């Protein structure tokens, strides 16, 4: 666990890197999430003070966007495309298989903390669906066997 002084130091360093940028809040939130894996609640007042916003405003922005998370994920994040072109190729069955195999629903993390399952609406791989993203790595034409293999390979 990080103490709040450490959090403050890293957040301030990120804020310094974004000084002078027009409309810097999204890039700042991305940088914080990249660094911490999520947006620690302790970071919000620091960002707010720096950008001359209220804490509620920063929280409002953060919560508007699906990408930003308040809590850490599991060790791995599995994103499955739920959009139309992947549905045409069996994405619904694939998602059902994944939920069964992992024993969790969308947005949940397995009890051992290993995998978080997230829906995604299109990865631009619509001519080779169903598509997935595993810890940032793109995978096309995923079927149940390939998915089990991917999940089995996660440590």
């Amino acid at each position: 666990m990080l103490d709040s002084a450490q959090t403050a130091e890293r957040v301030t360093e990120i804020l310094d890197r974004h000084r002078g940028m027009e409309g810097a809040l999204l890039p700042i939130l991305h940088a914080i999430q990249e660094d911490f894996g999520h947006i620690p609640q302790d970071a919000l007042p620091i960002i707010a003070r720096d950008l001359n916003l209220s804490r509620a405003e920063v929280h409002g922005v953060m919560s508007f966007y699906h990408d930003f998370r308040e809590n850490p994920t599991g060790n791995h994040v599995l994103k499955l495309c739920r959009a139309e072109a992947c549905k045409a190729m069996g994405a619904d069955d694939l998602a059902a298989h994944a939920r069964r195999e992992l024993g969790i629903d969308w947005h949940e993390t397995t009890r051992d903390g290993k995998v978080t399952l997230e829906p995604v609406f299109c990865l631009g791989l619509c001519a080779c669906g169903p598509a997935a993203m595993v810890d940032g790595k793109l995978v096309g034409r995923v079927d149940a066997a390939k998915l089990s293999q991917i999940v089995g390979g996660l440590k």
Partner: protein
Amino acid sequence: MKVWLPLDSAAVALGADEIAEAIQSLAAQRGVDLTLVRNGSRGMVWLEPLAEVETPQGRMAFGPMTPEDVPALFGDLAAHPKALGRTEDLPWLKAQTRLTFARVGLTDPLSLQDYTAHGGLEGLKRALGMTPAEVVAEVTESGLRGRGGAGFPTGIKWKTVSEAKADRKYIVCNADEGDSATFADRMLMEGDPLTLIEGMAIAGLACGATKGFVYIRSEYPVAIRIMQEAVAVAQRAGILGTSVLGHGPAFDIEIRVGAGAYVCGEETSLLNSLEGKRGIVRAKPPLPALEGFLGKPTVVNNVISLASAPVIMAKGASHYKGFGLGRSRGTIPLQIAGNVRYGGLYEIAFGLTLDQIVNDIGGGTASGRPVKAVQVGGPLGAYFPASLFDTPFGYEEFAGKDGLIGHAGLTVFDDSADMLEMARFAMEFCAIESCGKCTPCRIGAVRGVETVDRIARGDSAAIPLLTDLCNTMKSGSLCALGGFTPYPVMSAITHFPDDFQPRRFEEAAE
């Protein structure tokens, strides 16, 4: 030995990085002097990963490559099990008219030398010798309309910004590309990013803007990386910076990353997001062209609109305008997706019928079963049944059939598709992605899901309720998310009424 292997996301998702590694290690093992170029994709996704090898006869294509196919690339190429012949002779590629995508797949995306050797910068150089008004007139004359979906004439938008008086103006490239079945923006940014940069610089000259942003969705990590590198290449070469190509005004570009909100593809929501706010849609007027980013005059254009400016400037408006149908001028990068045999990107003049696109080019379904429906224009587009397959691809032609072409994505479904489920999904997607500003969108979409569920349970009285709800959403929504979600829903009900009959209930009970 010179080999091309795409860095394109689709190729990578099908194993291109592993093939690249295998080629490199085998070359090292055998002491072969290898030049491996990671290019854009040629757009034939069913052949990815597609390797190309330089030979005296031209570039030879091999695909879809597996690691087992790699050793044979070092042997007799004609005998290679995946040999496809010369790339440029492949019929799917040969029949296209590639204007905007002319260099994608051909060149090293980050090589300025490749870029200029294949006609890059000619458009910008010509624009530098013209007045802003002349550049605007050329783009207007080309007939180019916004490729982001709404089809607004690009030249007219530029004229408004060009004539606006302000201390700062902006060019914002909309690379949010959230529609399912679309990947043209991604492929262009990954395969020929300098074209987009050149197009934005031309827009900057034409409009008197000195700063550009490219807002790329976070789901596109490869495109983000390549665009960042390409901006650095352009800055080093003086294409961007204090003076465009050393004798123009200043113009620079910054890459920004979205955060997973579909609605941020809507231009005013995007501007709010760029400003660091929630991506709530703004009421219009004021038009972004007059009061856009930070209240300054701003061009917001789709990637393909901007990336078409260089070829229009290089070859002239009349060349571009010479292609097309009716009021849909030029070419359109069709993105053929879903359950389709030959899926990918196909750039061609407007005017092909849906039948030609789906059956002749796409080869029908991947499953081999009959085509049931094609959704055209992404999640806000209508489902077309086979009986409407004679519709020619054009803005007005599709509007005339209660549909839209949107960003030109087509999703093919075979006869196993359940159109009630697709109608439900359209409502669910709208509910998840609504910015929340309008009640008919925010609440209506949630009611829509519930109403579809009632129909699924056999309550056919809920069908008129769903129709009413769609009418309310159409008339009471500020933007096309709430306003157009009725297109997929109503087209599903209208064209596939059997899927909404109580018989579904009996089947489900079996």
